[in-house]
């Protein structure tokens, strides 16, 4: 059992756990949508005084901020107590493609080239993280949801808008991966 939990989880087991979280939230009268927290954080910070979009009863969203706090704890727990410290077992083809872009072979779960402090203290490194975040935060709200809200909850409810959003996710992701990465890396 312990061994099963410590090794990386299979896709099917992970999928079952994720959809179970969605069903528990439905059972508790809520819906699974993580990026709504970004809007809530703006509202908590007082953005509602200036911008109508953030003028809503954010107190009704506190449960989701608590969920966010749990997610941080979960990440900590997974690393401290459930990790075998092995790098990601990435597909050979991906390793080759990333090598060609100047990334070294994975030694952990994230590339040092992007997420080490050394990388962040370069202008390019900082801009990559900042721009990545800006696009995600802007796009998630424009599209009305992120991976949890559209790709999981929305598709599970057979919502056409969510399918369109997921197609959009891939249009953007493919443009970045195949069009922009060769220019910036």
């Amino acid at each position, binding site marked *: 059992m312990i061994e099963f939990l410590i090794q990386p989880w299979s896709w099917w087991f992970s999928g079952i756990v994720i959809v179970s979280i969605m069903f528990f939230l439905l059972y*508790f009268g809520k819906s699974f949508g993580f990026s709504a927290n970004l809007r809530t954080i703006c509202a908590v910070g007082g953005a509602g005084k200036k911008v109508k979009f953030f003028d809503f009863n954010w107190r009704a969203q506190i449960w989701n901020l608590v969920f966010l706090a749990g997610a941080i704890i*979960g990440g900590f727990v997974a690393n401290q107590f459930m990790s075998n410290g092995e790098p990601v077992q990435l597909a050979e*083809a991906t390793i080759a493609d990333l090598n060609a872009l100047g990334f070294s072979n994975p030694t952990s*779960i994230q590339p040092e080239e992007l997420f080490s402090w050394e990388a962040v203290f370069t202008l390019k490194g*900082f801009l990559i*993280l900042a721009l990545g975040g800006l696009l995600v935060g802007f796009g998630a709200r424009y599209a009305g949801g992120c991976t949890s809200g559209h790709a999981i909850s929305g*598709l*599970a409810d057979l919502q056409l808008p969510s399918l369109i959003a997921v197609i959009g996710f891939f249009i953007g*992701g493919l443009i970045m991966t195949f069009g922009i990465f060769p220019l910036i890396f």
Partner: protein
Amino acid sequence: MKLIKFLALGIVFGIVMAKSEALSWYRIQEMFRFQSFHMYGIIGTAVVLGVLGIALIKKFNVRDNEGNPIVFYPKAKSVARYLMGGAIFGLGWALSGACPGPMVVNIGYGYLTMAIVFLFATIGTFIYGLVKDKLPH
């Protein structure tokens, strides 16, 4: 104390994001390059079981823990906002290798620089709120 259950679910969410490696920039690259089934398997499993479960909830009018019916609100019909918003999201997802959930899981995992991504995601949402009325929806 009603909130404890959401903390618990959040913890499970953080653990599954980490143990499935969905929080890894590498895995997102692998997905967008169509070089592994892994991410598709995760999302696909969740969606297939989700479709079945939600169909059953609707068929049997399942109620939540407080006795209220579980209702699903159809999202507003549009193409522009979902396609363009989605594409902007996708650009950022591939670049930073994280959607909003995995961003905070990464912070807990020890990748503190992901806090920069999360901070700017919050700023991105704020900018959307500012310019929302000027965008096609």
